[in-house]
C-alpha cells in the first residue's frame, strides 16, 4: 500500500513531515511520489496563507472525486485555523492536530482501512468510546484550543530526515506573541517547549551520524523554556549545552536557530553563540519594520532601541556573524515616513540578507479585520526600493569576502551547468565549479573569487594548497 503527503508552508511543516512519514510507514505503507497511485493521501496544511489554503481545497475536491474510482483515505493536519478545521472535518476522512500524530494509525484503523498494524482486534464498545472522544476532541481543536496538549508524544517520534547532512530539530512549538499580522498563535496554539534532554539526544545522534548543519526550529526559539516556569533550562543554557557537546565531539558542524524574537533576545544568547565554534555565526533577527509606531501596531513588543542594542551586541561580540532579517512593507497604515524609517535601518544594520514581504492579509490574524489600506502599487514600489537597498549592502559584504578562504558546506549539484552549490557558515550561497558529488555533505575550503549581490563563487582548494599558502 502506498501513501503520499503534500507539505505546504514553512520549515516547521517540513520538519513535521519528517516525523509523519515514519508513523505512516510503521503501518506498512510505502512512499510514492505519485499521489494518483496512493491509497493514503494527506496534507500538512498552512492556514497562514490564503494561497496554501486554496491548494488544500483544490486537492481534497480532486481526491474526493477520485474516491469513486479507488479506495482512498485522506487526512489533513498542520497549521489550521479553527474556521478551516471545521470545514475540513466535512471534507477529509481524518483531521488531527500534529500533536496527536501518534494516534494516526488508530485513526486510520477506525476508518476501516486494513493495514498490518491495524489488524489488532478491538471490540465495538471501544470503537464507540474512541469515536466519541475523537469527536469531542476535534470540536475542541476546531475552537483552536489545547492544540499542543500532546506535543510531548509527537516529539518522541523518530523523524525521517530528508537529508543525510542537514536536519531540522524542533525545540518548541506554538506562539504566545500574537503579532497582529500573524495567525500562527491561532493555528499552532500556545508555546510549548520540548524537553531539553530529548533535544540534546537528537542533536547528539545527528552529530554522531556526521550531520553538518542542524537547525533548531521553533516559532519563537528564544522563549524556549519560559512556558516551563523554571523547570526547564533557558534558551542560552540549551545553546550552551549543545555548544559543550559540540566541543567534546571534536567534529565540525554548524548549529543554527530560527526564528528568534527580538523581545526575548538576551545578551547571554549572543555571548554563548560567540563562545562555541559549533554555534553558527549567523543570526536571523526578524525586524519587520524600522518604525516604532508600526511595531506598536504590529504588536511586536520590541522597539528600535531594543533592536539596535541587540545588533550592536552581535557586532561587538561576533563581528564576523552574518545578519538576516524579515521585513514587511505596506502593513496597514504604513506611511511614507514610516517606510523611510525602515529604509534607514537597512542602511544602519547592513543586513546580509532580508526576507522582504509585501503585506498581505492572513486570514485569522488580528490585522485581517483592519483596512489593508496601502495600495498594491505602493507596496510593490516599497518592496523594490528595499530590495535595492538590501542588494547594495549584501553586495558590499560579499565583495569583502573575495580573495579569502571560507569553510563551505557543499549541498548538491546546481540545476544548470557543471557546478556544485554550497553555503558558508553565515549561510551565503557559493557556487563551485566541480561535479565531484563525493563532496556533497562535506565542509570544504573554498577560495572566493567573485561576488554578486546574493551569492559568491569560488574554487575548491585542497589541503596542500592550503598548507603552502
Amino acid at each position, binding site marked *: 500500500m502506498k501513501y503520499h503527503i503534500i507539505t505546504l508552508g514553512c520549515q516547521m511543516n517540513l520538519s513535521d513531515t519528517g516525523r509523519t512519514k515514519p508513523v505512516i510507514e510503521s503501518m506498512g505503507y510505502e512512499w510514492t511520489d505519485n499521489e494518483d497511485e496512493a491509497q493514503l493521501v494527506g496534507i500538512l496544511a498552512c492556514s497562514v496563507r490564503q494561497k496554501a489554503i486554496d491548494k488544500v481545497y483544490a486537492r481534497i475536491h480532486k481526491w474526493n472525486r477520485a474516491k469513486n474510482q479507488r479506495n482512498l483515505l485522506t487526512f489533513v493536519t498542520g497549521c489550521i485555523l479553527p474556521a478551516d478545521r471545521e470545514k475540513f472535518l466535512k471534507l477529509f476522512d481524518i483531521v488531527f492536530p500534529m500533536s496527536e500524530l501518534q494516534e494516526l494509525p488508530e485513526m486510520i484503523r477506525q476508518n476501516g482501512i486494513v493495514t498490518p498494524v491495524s489488524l489488532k482486534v478491538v471490540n465495538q464498545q471501544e470503537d464507540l468510546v474512541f469515536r466519541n472522544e475523537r469527536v469531542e476532541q476535534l470540536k475542541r481543536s476546531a475552537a*483552536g484550543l489545547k492544540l499542543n496538549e500532546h506535543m510531548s508524544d509527537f516529539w518522541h517520534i523518530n523523524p525521517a530526515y530528508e537529508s543525510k547532512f542537514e536536519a531540522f530539530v524542533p525545540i518548541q512549538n506554538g506562539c504566545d506573541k500574537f503579532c*497582529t499580522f500573524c495567525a500562527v498563535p491561532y493555528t499552532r496554539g500556545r508555546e510549548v517547549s520540548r524537553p531539553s534532554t530529548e533535544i540534546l539526544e537528537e542533536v547528539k545522534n545527528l552529530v554522531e551520524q556526521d550531520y553538518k548543519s542542524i537547525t533548531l526550529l521553533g516559532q519563537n526559539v528564544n522563549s524556549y523554556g519560559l512556558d516551563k516556569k523554571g523547570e526547564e533550562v533557558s534558551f542560552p543554557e540549551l545553546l550552551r549545552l549543545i555548544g559543550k557537546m559540540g566541543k567534546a565531539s571534536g567534529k565540525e558542524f554548524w548549529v543554527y536557530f530560527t526564528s528568534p524574537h527580538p523581545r526575548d533576545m538576551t545578551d547571554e544568547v549572543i555571548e554563548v553563540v560567540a563562545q562555541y565554534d559549533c554555534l553558527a555565526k549567523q543570526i536571523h533577527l526578524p525586524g519587520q519594520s524600522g518604525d516604532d509606531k508600526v511595531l506598536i501596531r504590529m504588536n511586536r513588543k520590541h522597539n528600535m*532601541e531594543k533592536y539596535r542594542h541587540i545588533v550592536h551586541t552581535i557586532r561587538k561580540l561576533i563581528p564576523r556573524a552574518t545578519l538576516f532579517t524579515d521585513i514587511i512593507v505596506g502593513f496597514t497604515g504604513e506611511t511614507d515616513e514610516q517606510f523611510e524609517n525602515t529604509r534607514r535601518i537597512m542602511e544602519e544594520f547592513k543586513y546580509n540578507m532580508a526576507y522582504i514581504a509585501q503585506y498581505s492579509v492572513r486570514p485569522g490574524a488580528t490585522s485581517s479585520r483592519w483596512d489593508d489600506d496601502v495600495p498594491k502599487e505602493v507596496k510593490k514600489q516599497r518592496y523594490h526600493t528595499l530590495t535595492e537597498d538590501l542588494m547594495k549592502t549584501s553586495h558590499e559584504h560579499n565583495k569583502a569576502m573575495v580573495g579569502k578562504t571560507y569553510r563551505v558546506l557543499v549541498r548538491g549539484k546546481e540545476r544548470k551547468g557543471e557546478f556544485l552549490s554550497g553555503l558558508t557558515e553565515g549561510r551565503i550561497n557559493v557556487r563551485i565549479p566541480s561535479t565531484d558529488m563525493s563532496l556533497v555533505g562535506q565542509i570544504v575550503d573554498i577560495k572566493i573569487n567573485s561576488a554578486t549581490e546574493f551569492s559568491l563563487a569560488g574554487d575548491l582548494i585542497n589541503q596542500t594548497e592550503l598548507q603552502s599558502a
Partner: protein
Amino acid sequence: METITHNKYTVKKIRELTKSTYVVRMERNGMAFIPGQNLNLGLAGDTEKRDYSIYSRKKDDYLEILVKEVEDGLVSKQLKRINPGDALEVDGPFGFFTLKEEHLYSKKFLFISSGTGIAPFHSITGSFPEIDFTLLHGVRYLDETYEKHDYPDDRYISCISQEAGGDFHGRVTDYIKQHPVDKDTLCYLCGNVNMIYDVFDILKEQGVPSENLHAEVYF
C-alpha cells in the same frame, strides 16, 4: 487518551453601562492572569473569537470584560445578546501589556486610554491600588466614562471631546500637551491606534524615551 479540560466559561451577569457598552461577568474557573492581559473569546461552539482585555481584578472570583458593541461588528454584537447561564469559549490569558513587578511601587505610571481601552487599567488599578498612577480616559460623551467611581477621584481624569462637564474638555492629546509628562514616568497607552500614534508623538517630543512607552492597539 488524556481527558479534556474544558475551556467553557458560564456567563454570570451582564451589566449595561451605556446603550452600546456593557460588562460581561463570567466564572473565573481558577484562571491565573496578570492584570493588563487579555482573553480570546467568543460564543461556545462558534469559531469566531476576538480579544478582550480583562476588566476585573486579580482578587475577584469572577472574570469580567468591558465590551463596546461595534456597528457592523460580529462578536461584539453576539456578546451583547448573551444571557446569564450561556457559555463562552475562552482562551488565555495572553499578552505582555503588564506592569513589571519591580516597577510597581518604585515608578510613576501614566495610563492613557480611549473608549474601552480603559479596560486593562481597570484591572491594573483595582489589583494594585497602591501604585502611583494617573489615568487619562478619552471619550466623546460624559456617559462614556463608564465606572469612573472605581478609580480614586484625584487619579482619574476624563477627557471629553464632544461635551462639557468632564474633568477636561478636549482630547487626551490636548491634555498631555498642556500637562507635559515627566520623562521618568512609565506610560501605557491603550485603545484606538490614532490616539496611540498621536500620544506617542507628543510623548516622544516631550522627551519620554521609547523604553518607557508601552502600547496595546485594539483597532
